[in-house]
């Protein structure tokens, strides 16, 4: 019970910090501008404008979510160590893992709030151009939340270990690799005897499988989405995030605060 109180105190303060961060407001504004731009593009394009807006809109919400996750996430722990604001906090009866978990919950909640806000704006845009809100669109929005949450966990993990620049670089590399993880699987299937196959298999397992969370195509083209397509990625997201947070906590457990 005491652990919960402490974790929620850290989470609450981190949430406040993130929500009051100007980067977040700027990125939200940027997302709105991009939705407007997708409206203009859809007007000039051949095809159904609501599909183009939905396609571009879903991509923008994930990208903005990931950019916030990376650039605000990589300074979450390291920034506090650098600014020494962490010293009076860790002088209190707080376990380091409680601190890491509280940071994650607070930050990911703030990112989630912004992410939901962006999706609501996207839905309003779609309603204005005459496109309805399909269940496929909502399912795609739901799963991409997990993609962003996973990037938040990765950014936090690197922030507990190394400097913000290296953390950002590592997170971006893993994000890109995660987006192409399906191609690794495809390559392994096509070339099973390849000399690099064992290494690629390890990379495939370690790298987050972000394509798992991508239902954009299904949402835009009204392809049915089964329950398994939602449940398995959700479980994968929960397990992957938990493992990443465990590594972050272990790495931070005995770290000297300079």
């Amino acid at each position, binding site marked *: 019970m*005491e652990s919960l*109180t*402490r974790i*929620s*105190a*850290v989470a*609450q*303060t981190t949430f*406040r*910090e993130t929500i*009051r*961060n100007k980067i977040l407001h700027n990125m939200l504004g940027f997302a709105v501008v991009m939705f407007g731009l997708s409206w203009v593009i859809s007007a000039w394009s051949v095809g159904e404008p609501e599909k183009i807006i939905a396609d571009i809109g879903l991509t923008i919400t994930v990208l903005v979510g990931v950019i916030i996750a990376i650039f605000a996430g990589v300074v979450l722990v390291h920034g506090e160590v650098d*600014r*020494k*604001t962490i*010293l*009076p*906090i*860790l*002088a*209190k*009866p*707080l*376990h380091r893992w409680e601190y890491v978990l509280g940071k994650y919950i607070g930050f990911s909640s703030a990112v989630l709030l912004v992410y939901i806000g962006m999706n609501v704006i996207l839905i309003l845009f779609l309603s204005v151009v005459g496109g309805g809100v399909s269940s496929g669109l909502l399912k795609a929005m739901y799963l991409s939340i997990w993609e962003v949450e996973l990037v938040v966990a990765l950014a936090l993990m690197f922030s507990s270990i190394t400097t913000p620049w290296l953390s950002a670089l590592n997170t971006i590399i893993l994000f890109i690799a995660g987006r192409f993880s399906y191609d690794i699987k495809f390559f392994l299937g096509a070339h099973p005897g390849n000399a690099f196959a064992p290494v690629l298999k390890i990379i495939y397992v370690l790298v987050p499988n972000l394509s798992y969370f991508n239902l954009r195509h299904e949402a835009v083209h009204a392809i049915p989405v089964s329950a398994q397509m939602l449940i398995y990625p959700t479980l994968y997201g929960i397990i992957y995030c938990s493992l990443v947070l465990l590594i972050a906590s272990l790495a931070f457990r*005995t770290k*000297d*605060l300079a």
Partner: protein
Amino acid sequence: MSAKPVIKTDGLSKQYRLGLTLKPVDAVTDLNLEVNEGEIFAFIGLNGAGKTTTIKLLLDHARPTKGKAFLFGFDATDPHARERIGYLPDLPHFYQFLTANELLDYSGKLFCLSKTKLAKRSGELLETVGLGDRGNERLRGFSRGMLQRLGFAQALINHPDLVILDEPLGGLDPIGRVELMNLITDLKSKNTTVFFSSHILEDAQKVADRIGIIHKGHLLACGKKSELLQTKAGWEAEIAINEFDLSGLCKKNNWQYQTNEECYTVTISDDEDVQKLYKLASEKKINIISLHHRQLNLEEAFLKELDRWKA
């Protein structure tokens, strides 16, 4: 009956590895220290002596390379050890985006204080440190002195039995220093143990009961203030001014002296010179008003320990 040690270190050592070559640097070496309940302990040393590193080891901000630290009998790496502790860091860096009330609220929740207790305590503490009317202001607009005072308030949120202050007097104006020293002595009156590091020796001498002197990671001396300062540092004579030119005599004998309208104050280092002064006094009709052993001040005791260590 001897007091219980609130802080105890046992061969505590910390070595950092710096630069690309990972050159080992000993920040603290084999530190054995005991701080007892209810006392004000000043931990003094030059910049880079190892004061802040010792505090980091006590608070588990860094792990020792060798040895152990204990707080209230708990291993310092156990978070339970910090339940009865308040801490003020050397530079009062707090979250700029929070208000003073929010910072105290956050600090209190980490000690699992109830909402009602916390609201009452926050109000009391802000009044105590003179920020009663600034509770709802963001820390972004606070001066260094205000942050230091707020830092003191957050350190006391849990009614701690031990307060650890890292250079609490640095960066404060004279009034701020006096106020903070009054707060420190107030804590002692409530039987709270205070451990503070400082390089401002004058202030340390005023409030401390016991003093530890650290230099280059080594504890050079540790004991009651009265014991550290009792070492005799020669003689001090007060001599009435008359027609005799005493200043010439002092210069000739290499005695230090000060003068005011009524008398000279002469510092004499050894007993032979005292005899010489008595002889001159009878010959030249000099009136010696007083003659007594001179005691070291903390600065002199500190320099003496440093010289002894170098030798």
